[in-house]
């Protein structure tokens, strides 16, 4: 049985300018112990997907349809108490921008201990001991429990956030752009840490990032989103070897690499699609070099075209030959 099964999830934001279809009918599954990378550009709905999984979509956003089955139960049907019990104990999240997510008025230790005390009803001293162990686990000296967030560097804050996310030994960890604000070397150190912890604690992980190179180095599976839709999902080696969707193909080739020969890169023409009034048919069609008339008429479905390889494109087979 899969650990997480998202079915036809729709999360819209009801703004004065219209409905923003941030997540528009996406489905995917994750097995226990898997690591799935969710990639895409800003505004493609990847963070909204993550917030939907812990039912924390900020207003004016609302989940308006679909199911999220976690360990066989639809968590969207949970009441407030059940949802609170689920968060952190089962699914926890490392948020983007650690400084904005840590409370500057409380010591790191107290912030890490808070969910432990809530979920496990243990005494404060025991919880603080656990906080110290967790800090050590993520490579911060135990004495730092008494520090405030602003006394830590960016990398340490991000580590503290990870310690906090692991406080109740969750089954699924969602990491939303965990290294985006960090310097190159520090971010490599944080990603190393996440990889180690995943092995050590047998975590399942959903990693959200705009940087597919990070996913190439960290995850087993990759799902690519474009304008609120999932366009392709499969294991990491096959998508990097042979991406089937033209958007995935372009995205993978848009990154300069430091290894191998210096390659000419090609960008993608045009701008990301409007989510209030998306183009009809395939949303990538206006920017797609392979688009034909069918693409702007019919919405392509995400179909399993090979074993475990899902793609949403009318013309993926023809494109293989044309390329």
């Amino acid at each position, binding site marked *: 049985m899969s650990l997480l099964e998202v079915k036809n999830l729709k999360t819209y934001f009801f703004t004065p300018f219209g409905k923003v279809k941030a997540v528009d009918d996406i489905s995917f599954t994750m097995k226990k112990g898997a690591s799935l990378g969710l990639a895409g*550009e*800003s505004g493609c709905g990847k963070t909204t997907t993550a917030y939907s999984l812990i039912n924390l979509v900020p207003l004016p956003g609302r989940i308006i349809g679909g199911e999220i089955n976690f360990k066989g139960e639809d968590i969207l049907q949970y009441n407030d108490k059940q949802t609170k019990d689920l968060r952190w104990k089962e699914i926890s999240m490392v948020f983007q921008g650690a400084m904005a997510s840590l409370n500057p008025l409380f010591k790191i230790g107290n912030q890490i201990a808070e969910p432990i005390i809530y979920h496990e009803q243990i005494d404060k001293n025991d919880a603080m001991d656990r906080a110290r162990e967790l800090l050590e686990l993520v490579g911060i000296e135990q004495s730092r429990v008494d520090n405030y967030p602003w006394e830590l*560097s960016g*990398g340490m804050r991000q580590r503290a956030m990870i310690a906090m996310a692991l406080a109740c030994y969750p089954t699924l960890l969602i990491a939303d752009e965990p290294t985006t604000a960090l*310097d*190159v*070397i*520090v*971010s*490599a*150190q944080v*990603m*190393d840490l996440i990889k180690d912890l995943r092995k050590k604690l047998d975590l399942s992980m959903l990693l959200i990032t*705009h*940087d*597919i*190179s*990070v996913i*190439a*180095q960290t995850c087993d599976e990759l799902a690519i989103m474009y304008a609120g839709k999932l366009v392709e999902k499969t294991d*990491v*080696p096959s998508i*990097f070897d042979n991406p089937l969707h033209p958007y995935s193909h*372009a*995205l*993978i080739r*848009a*990154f*300069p*690499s*430091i*290894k*191998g020969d*210096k390659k000419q*890169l*090609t*960008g*993608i*023409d045009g*701008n*990301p699609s409007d989510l209030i009034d998306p183009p009809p048919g395939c949303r990538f069609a206006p920017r797609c070099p392979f688009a034909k008339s069918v693409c702007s008429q019919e919405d392509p479905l995400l179909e399993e075209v090979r074993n475990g390889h899902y793609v949403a494109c009318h013309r993926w087979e023809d494109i293989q030959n044309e390329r």
Partner: protein
Amino acid sequence: MERKIKVSVQNLEKYFDIRGGFLESIFSRSEQRYLKAVDGISFDIKEGEIFGLVGESGCGKTTTGRLIMNTIKPTGGKIIFEGEDLANKKTNEEQKALALKMQMIFQDPYEYLSPWLNIKNTLGEPLRIHELVQTEEEELETITKMMETVGLTPVEMILPKYSYELSGGQRQRVLIARALLLDPSFLVADEPVSMLDVSIRVGILNLLLDLKEKFNLTGLFITHDIAVSRYMCDRIGVMYLGKIVEMGPAEKIISNPIHPYTKALITAVPVPDPKIEIGDIPIEGRIPSNAMDLPTGCRFHPRCPVAKEGCKDKEPELVEIEPDHFVSCHFNND
């Protein structure tokens, strides 16, 4: 043929005064303290090449760019632009003449575009200030041509818009157009793509490379991303805490880094290919957050995996270890 030197930076220093508040500066007898943002760097940019400054945040790369643009004054050292010392350019006229030769584009285009001016006026203003056009028709013609060159089309649609109505990529193109309208021969680009989406990024990088050929530009490209610098630059200088630690042709440095910091920086870059396993990061820790109390000797020694006795005491010089490849490390032969 040896190419002419466009910009020559010689022992450039910029120290920021960080006395606390006003009262403290009057009454306190504590020692005067400085933040050494740029601390004695030298390099040449040859005509027609793109030179890259690469490093993590706080290494002084942006300060160097601003010093070269003559928007802040150096504490010490010299910048020679086309054979003339920038320190002598003091009057308004001289500054204005300089603006026709050197221009800059920035990381966040939104911050550098006035929300009160539409694109037509944004692009027209520098032409009027420098009296490069006589009539309105001429102005419109020049702007239109430039907008087509940088890919801001359809022109008639974009001209009446304001910067907040444009996408990030379009804004960056406006900034590039505005810089190039004055027909400069030298362009400083400070992290021009780090705010942009992946799919837009390559478009801007390729545009800059095209324009460099078309307008015969010489460039200084500032970035934290060594992979981008490889794509853009002929030669790069790697900076660490206000010093250049390694300098040379981009390909040479990336395929054969000598300085332990450069090595670490290259190892840390994720590669968009799962078949390539990135190695362990050879260094610990991070850049000291308190750049006022710099480590003694070699600034990198507290984090360096190969540091030995002497590194703590003696500051290494930037020496040429092979033609056009400079390294600042005591153990550049190991």
